[in-house]
């Protein structure tokens, strides 16, 4: 425990130090609120608007989780389907990678038109498209980049394709899938907020930030930014925890065990 504390001490010190410097600098140089409100007034805004922040945070999180589920399930289904045909997946992978470099955020206004600007579904669909390609590509890699020795071993048992899938390919893909979901957790929240920027319900983080900033209530806007960041870290940690339970054999878990 104390070893762990010693390991994390520098990071904690940086946190405290930066907050202190920030507060001091804002006061000493009289930096205006619209440039950077001091941590103390952000904290004050957080306390004052706690209930509202919880509501808007929850609404945005719902969009993010919903989108991650829609996009994630679709990506898994597609990857499982095309991994069966080795040549098809090899031919499709470059296009998936190319599609992944399309700035998906550009589709946000389209999704607003398709699914309704006030409906959370339009934000979910932006998130779904955003996370679809990373999850699909990673899953496909995990299913196809399998140790040749394992495949030969299964062949020497005259194993069926189904047995090879469930006993070799799927377990091999799980770490890849979790990596993709961890990245997508953060991505989904940011995607939802950016999608909200193109218009949507007032009761969501993106619109809350825009409105508060427009009325020069910058401390409120920054409090919402902090909420977004904290929610997104929490989302990431939840998936990390699921990963630890689901694939205890994986290298990342081993390192954690030994410390």
């Amino acid at each position, binding site marked *: 425990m104390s070893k762990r504390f010693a*390991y*994390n001490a*520098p*990071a904690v*010190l*940086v*946190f405290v130090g930066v907050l202190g410097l920030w507060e001091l600098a804002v006061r000493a140089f009289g930096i205006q609120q*619209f*440039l*950077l409100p001091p941590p103390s007034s952000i904290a004050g805004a957080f306390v004052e608007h706690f209930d509202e922040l919880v509501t808007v945070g929850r609404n945005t999180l719902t969009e993010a989780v919903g989108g991650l589920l829609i996009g994630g399930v679709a990506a898994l289904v597609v990857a499982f389907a095309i991994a069966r045909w080795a040549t098809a997946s090899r*031919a499709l992978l*470059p*296009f998936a*990678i*190319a599609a*992944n*470099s*399309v*700035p*998906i*955020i*550009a*589709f946000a*206004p*389209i999704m*607003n*038109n*398709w699914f309704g600007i006030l409906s959370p579904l339009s934000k979910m669909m932006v998130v779904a498209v955003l996370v679809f390609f990373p999850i699909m590509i990673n899953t496909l890699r995990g299913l196809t*980049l399998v140790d040749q020795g394992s495949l030969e071993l299964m062949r020497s048992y005259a194993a069926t394709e189904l047995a090879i899938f469930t006993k070799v390919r799927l377990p091999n893909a799980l770490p890849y899938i979790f990596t993709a979901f961890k990245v997508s957790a*953060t991505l989904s*929240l*940011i995607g939802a*907020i*950016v999608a909200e*920027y*193109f218009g949507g319900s007032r009761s969501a*983080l*993106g619109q809350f*930030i*825009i409105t508060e*900033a427009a009325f020069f209530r910058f401390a409120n*806007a920054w409090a*919402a*930014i902090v909420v*977004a*960041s904290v929610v*997104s*870290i929490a989302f*990431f940690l939840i998936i990390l925890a699921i990963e630890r339970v689901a694939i205890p054999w994986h290298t990342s878990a081993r390192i954690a065990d030994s410390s």
Partner: protein
Amino acid sequence: MFRAGRSALSFLVVIGALAVLWEVVKLLGGDPNGGWIPPFQWTVASDLNMPHVWDIGASFVEPAQRNGPPLGIVLVNAGIFTFREAFGGFVFGALLGLGLAIVFVHSRLLERALVPYVVASQTVPIIAIAPVVVIWLRGGWLAVAVISAYLTFFPVTIAGLRGLRSPDPRALELMRSYASSSRDVLLKVRLPAAAPYLFAAFKVAATASVVGAIIGELPSGIRDGLGGAILNFNQFYVSGPPKLWAAIIVAAFVGIGFFALVRVAEAMFLRGRTAPSDA
């Protein structure tokens, strides 16, 4: 060259197939067209939500505004503008990312102190802090490039750190036995070993930089780039849906184009070396 030609051809085939699929959806559930009455009525497939492929194509040659230049020219200019921001952000981000990775590989203390915040930085919705950055840097494409760099430095730092740590410990011991300076170790062992990791990160960063540039334009009032175009055509969507689609298509091309550019650079730079499989 033959392979490049073939992949370009298959790229066109896929785009063609997508266009056909698009029209098939419209044929099944779109608005009545000529004498044809589709068997279904899907709102998503209406002419407002999914304009005909040929209407989108035609919008490129029609003037964007009354008596203005054709939309295609406007969008290509916007694309170049956004690409310039993205490229600036890519360069800033790559340099910052690599610099941080080099610092972290030499100092465990700084690594422990700062890496958690490097990771946490990516959970901050940049679109929310973009206006502040724009005020700080007095607007212009430079501000957008900085916003874009905020997204691009992260993958480069993480992959760079892994790549700089990737050399065989025996190679490092060998260098120690030559009494070489840490600068030599960096230049002759660590950086070459990190190159495949860095290029994998550059590919991610190229995409992120375009996203960052488009997002950065939105709250900063810059109207010369693709972000501005998307925002603009979104406001007039009802009167001209193909224009927004045209802007999105150009944005897609800028994203894919930048990615492809890094791929080509990677292929030239890493000739004969294999990329790390997990990147």
